[in-house]
């Protein structure tokens, strides 16, 4: 009744050259290797018990944003990809693998909102990551995403930052900061520090001011902290999203080991969602750690702690009202919604909630590595997240001028949405506001 032939193919050189190298035999062998060697009862139960009721459809921003097009519904994506791989036992052609890759890498953010809609507790995000895993093993990955994964394996960071460039960026930011805070240091490789501060690759590459800001906040709060001079500093993980789990494991191991070598008490992560997921949810499990070997604290929790204990005081509150974007990976992924609201209420005059919010929030459509699939798929994100634009517009109509999004990916994603839908909103990290408006007892008098 409905046309299931893929009619929205996006050209991507990574996917195309990937499938050009495939043969039906190779596909069949690889698919079955994953099914027999890597997946188990979890996939079977999810797949067998789905009663095809369609209740999950309205969970997904892609479905909602495409005027309820069923091919974007969570179960719809399953029936167009892994169901067929399972039913046909991998006997499919290269074009079908292109379709699987496009759906799994770019039309699902692995945000797990659909879990809140499924009576049987089926996790479509998990099934989409299995599809990604298969595509990765077949060498069919979007070019831009693969580039970040290559960078991870060559440099242990996401952005091809060389070792000397890393320390240079830190020293540069320290030097800049000293004009404002004469005693401030970014202490490298300090042994036994209370806080090991880790960031994602894009910070030293494009957003160095975030390192400055974090340094200023940690300095002002009098925290005993450090950053590593050697690889391990990047907590991000695009390999997790490309399906390269071996690499994901190496990344998490070096991250934790670098903190362990410095005998750090805990790791504090910058405002990033996916990196946090990789640390507490996926990377640790791949390595066989039930929890993490060194405690990891997300910036939201850390800021909440600094504000609660009075280590940071606000000189003035940011003029409101603002609204809060709940990043899936730290909210639906880690339940930090109350901490986030606490921090926002401490640093801003007032906030207005978007609807739905907290653990029911719509994803930004950048997550799950989708924004990292680069320019070819930008419109997939724009057209696929009108739902978010509508939410933001509703907030703007109530007088909101600023959106707070404590996640790097969300920032990228929301920035594009705000521009594309001409919403005229401003975006901020928590750290932006805290740094700008905190009491600076250690700064030079102006």
């Amino acid at each position, binding site marked *: *009744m*409905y046309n*299931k032939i893929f009619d929205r193919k996006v050209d991507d050189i990574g996917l195309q050259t990937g499938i050009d190298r495939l043969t039906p035999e190779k596909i069949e062998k690889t698919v079955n290797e994953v099914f027999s060697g*890597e*997946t*188990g*009862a*979890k996939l*079977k*139960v*999810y797949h*067998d*018990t*789905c*009663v*095809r*009721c*369609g*209740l*999950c*459809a*309205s*969970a997904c921003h892609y*479905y909602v944003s495409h005027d*309820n097009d*069923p*091919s974007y*519904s969570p*179960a*719809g994506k399953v*029936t167009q990809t892994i169901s067929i791989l399972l039913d046909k036992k991998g006997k499919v052609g290269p074009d079908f693998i292109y379709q699987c890759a496009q759906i799994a890498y770019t039309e699902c953010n692995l945000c797990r909102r659909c*879990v*809140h*809609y*499924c*009576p*049987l*507790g*089926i*996790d479509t995000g998990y099934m989409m990551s299995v599809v990604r895993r298969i595509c990765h093993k077949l060498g069919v990955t979007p070019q831009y995403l693969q580039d970040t994964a290559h960078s991870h394996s060559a440099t242990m960071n996401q952005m091809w930052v060389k070792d000397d460039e890393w320390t240079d960026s830190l020293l540069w930011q320290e030097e800049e900061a000293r004009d404002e805070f004469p005693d401030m240091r970014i202490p490298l490789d300090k042994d036994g520090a209370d806080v090991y501060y880790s960031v994602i690759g894009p910070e030293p590459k494009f957003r160095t001011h975030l390192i400055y800001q974090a340094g200023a906040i940690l300095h002002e709060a009098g925290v005993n902290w450090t950053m590593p001079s050697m690889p391990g500093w990047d907590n991000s993980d695009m390999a997790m999203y490309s399906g390269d789990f071996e690499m994901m494991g190496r990344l998490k191991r070096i991250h934790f080991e670098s903190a362990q070598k410095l005998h750090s008490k805990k790791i504090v992560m910058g405002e990033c969602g996916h990196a946090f997921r990789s640390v*507490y*949810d996926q990377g640790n*499990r*791949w390595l*066989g750690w*039930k929890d993490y070997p060194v405690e990891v604290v997300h910036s939201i929790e850390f800021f909440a702690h600094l504000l609660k204990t009075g280590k940071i005081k606000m000189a003035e509150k940011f003029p409101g009202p603002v609204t809060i974007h709940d990043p899936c990976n730290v*909210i*639906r*992924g*880690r*339940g*930090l*919604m109350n901490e986030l609201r606490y921090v926002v209420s401490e640093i801003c005059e007032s906030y207005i909630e978007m609807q*739905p919010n907290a*653990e*029911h929030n719509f994803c930004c459509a950048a997550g799950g590595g989708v924004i990292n699939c680069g320019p070819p798929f930008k419109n997939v994100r724009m057209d696929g997240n009108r739902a978010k634009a509508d939410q933001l517009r509703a907030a703007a109509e109530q007088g909101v001028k600023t959106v707070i999004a404590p996640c790097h990916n969300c920032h990228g994603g929301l920035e594009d949405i705000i521009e594309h839908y001409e919403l005229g909103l401003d975006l901020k990290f928590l750290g932006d506001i805290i740094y700008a408006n905190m009491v600076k007892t250690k700064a030079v008098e102006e």
Partner: protein
Amino acid sequence: MYNSIYDVVTGPLAWFGWAVFILGSLYRMASLYSEAKKKDVSSLAYVKASYGFNSIMHWITPFATLGWKSNPAMTVATFAFHICLLAVPVFLGAHIDLWYQWFGVSWVALPDTVADTMTVLVILAAAFFAYRRIAVKEVAFLTTWKDWMTLIIAVAPFLTGFLAYHQILNYQFMIVLHVITGVAWLVFIPFGRLSHAILGWYSRVYIGSEFQGVRHCNDW
């Protein structure tokens, strides 16, 4: 002739149905559990009874979850369907005799008019599901012959039971058909989509544990 056919379907055939249902269900549950222990350790490690219990309690309460709230018509139909679907076979007066005959146990029966109304509810809910499979595009997109088969197997004993009880069409033929479809109902529970009756608890308990325990957030 009728009597001997009736004896066969309620005797050996029924026993066959029970055997497949019980052994098949045990086999599927046990084999999946042992497979999970071997291959899904990194998921199984987080399973905790109290989280699973919370999750189940929320999802068996109408309108207690985001999913149910977002789909009111489906919520009403799903609950009516499943409650009646379980209650009627167990508590129907005419079945109480069979329970005694098969297992030597007995309990109070539902008044026939109540059971009859509940049967109609099952049929109406099934008609609603069928309507969705055809007319609601996100459901139509997912629907294959397997889903139709599932629906037909699930509702057939109720339809035939209803027709037999009201003596519409040939009673004797209907009652035999009723028992046969009832046996089919049992036989298919361990397999295919109907297995959600026994396996849905696994995914529910797991995702409940995963959300509440690891993600510190509700799964409803």
